[in-house]
């Protein structure tokens, strides 16, 4: 294990009957990074995270988290990690502050939960019953509960599922602030955009296997065209030769509409310069970067769907 490795998974396998939920998965997570496991529902994300957390028994392989074996040393591991589950509940009539107070009391060491409440914007809701909270508030409370012991690693399973876009962005900022405090964050999501915007490193999982693992920008560079440019030629029957542009990987013309793919960072600049130089008039110019969504499409041949 490298010095700063906090999670090491090797050859993890877990089946439910004949269904191989996790099929020979290996990876490492370093201290202080936001690591994301992304993939469609049923790909094996939750099974993997729950094996690492020590909540689920696995069939084969080995897992090391902060030097502990989660299956055998759960009682030593749980005090130093924080867990937000994909699905869980609290008692209907427990108040927000009571839940925090209770969960703090379970840990040998805990931080002042009033500060966490403040940070998560739940101070006004401290006397509210759990059942009266909105979906986003419940989610924030579960995050607060995962932080009461000031954990070294925070596990967030489907953090933003069911939240509106605004609440989702607020959640991202929250995760970034955890990283700023020096915590390692391990999250799962089926939103490619979330993984791309939030994670330092991403593992793409499909049918129980990791099909790619790297930083989001590196994955896009490796597995997809970096950039897609589209424009329409104003004049008919004009020849356009973009072959000399460095980093251009494909060129497609249908009538006057031109679509270009490339993987150079300043491709747009180069294309515009080229067109201006040759005095070629163009309109309706659009340029967009590839996303992890495109990477998934490229790797699996299908779209990510919920």
């Amino acid at each position, binding site marked *: 294990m490298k010095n700063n490795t906090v999670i090491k998974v090797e050859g993890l396998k877990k089946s439910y009957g004949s269904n191989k939920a996790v099929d020979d998965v290996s990876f490492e997570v370093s201290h202080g990074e936001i690591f994301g496991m992304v993939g469609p529902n049923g790909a094996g994300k939750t099974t993997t995270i729950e094996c690492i*957390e020590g*909540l689920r028994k696995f069939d084969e392989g080995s897992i090391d988290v902060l030097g502990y074996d989660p299956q055998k040393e759960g*009682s030593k591991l*749980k*005090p130093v990690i924080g*867990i937000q*589950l994909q*699905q*869980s*509940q*609290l*008692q*209907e*009539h*427990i108040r927000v502050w*009571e839940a925090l*107070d*209770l*969960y703090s*009391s*379970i*840990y*040998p060491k805990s931080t002042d939960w009033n500060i966490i409440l403040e940070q998560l914007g739940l101070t006004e809701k401290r006397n509210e019953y759990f059942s009266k909270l909105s979906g986003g508030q419940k989610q924030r409370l*579960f995050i607060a*509960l*995962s932080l009461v012991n000031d954990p070294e690693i925070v596990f967030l399973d489907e953090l933003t599922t069911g939240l509106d876009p605004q609440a989702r962005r607020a959640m991202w900022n929250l995760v970034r602030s955890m990283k700023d405090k020096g915590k390692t964050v391990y999250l799962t999501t089926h939103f490619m955009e979330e993984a791309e915007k939030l994670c330092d490193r991403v593992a793409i999982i499909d049918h129980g296997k990791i099909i790619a693992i790297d930083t989001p920008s590196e994955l896009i560079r490796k597995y997809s065209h970096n950039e897609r440019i589209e424009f329409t030629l104003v004049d008919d029957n004009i020849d356009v030769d973009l072959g000399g542009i460095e980093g251009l990987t494909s060129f497609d013309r249908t009538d006057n509409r031109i679509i270009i793919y490339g993987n150079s960072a300043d491709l747009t600049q180069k294309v515009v310069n080229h067109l201006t130089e040759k005095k070629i008039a163009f309109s309706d110019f659009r340029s967009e970067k590839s996303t992890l969504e495109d990477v998934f499409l490229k790797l699996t041949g299908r779209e990510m769907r919920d």
Partner: protein
Amino acid sequence: MKSLWKLTVIEFKMFYREPIAMFFTLVFPLMLLFIFGSIYGNEPTPFFGGVGFIDTAVPAYSAMIIAMTGLISVTLIFSSYRETGILRRLHATPLRPQTILSAIMIIVFMLTVAGMVILIIAGKLAYGLKFLGNPLKMTIAFILSSMSFFSIGFVLSGVLKTARAAQIASNAVYFPMIFLSGATIPREVLPEHLRTINQVLPLTHVVNLLRGLWVGNGFTDHIKEIIILTSMMVIFLVISFLTFRWD
């Protein structure tokens, strides 16, 4: 210990914030007491071995309360906590299963005690209830009986997969048992063939133990009941630890 205390306080609050859950447990036995009390009164009669109807009904109804809280309340709380994911969330912490089991046991025991106390007060005020036994021995028997029935509840909720199944099973065990064990209908009035069934029901031993101690018997008169209830408690507690599931 800190978490056991906090968890117990929280569970207590859950009960008083949803009082409807306690209503039946506390009120149903009282209802029986007044209905049958108004029919039979509490005159001493040789039919009940020289004491009155109420003097036998209060310990018998206490047994019914124990069956109700043990089989129904424990099962309901535990299986719904499991099904909704409350236990799953607790499992993500270092909390040990015995802490949550103990907290629920303490709260349900308090509810059981409350049921019995209300019954005693009502019996005393309305019918001049007499207690001929030893309070300490009575308390010990009451605790033993409660624990043995709570452990049945834990096993039921642990073995059955859904809250719905656990609820149906606990009702299926509870209702025939309270009528055939002598907890509601005195064993003296049961016909011969029902008395045979009566002998194999766990609740019968609670009824006999509590009724016996109430009229002044000693532990030595109830060795059989004590052995059976203690073994039930030990066996079912072991099973409930072995079959314990967080989800």
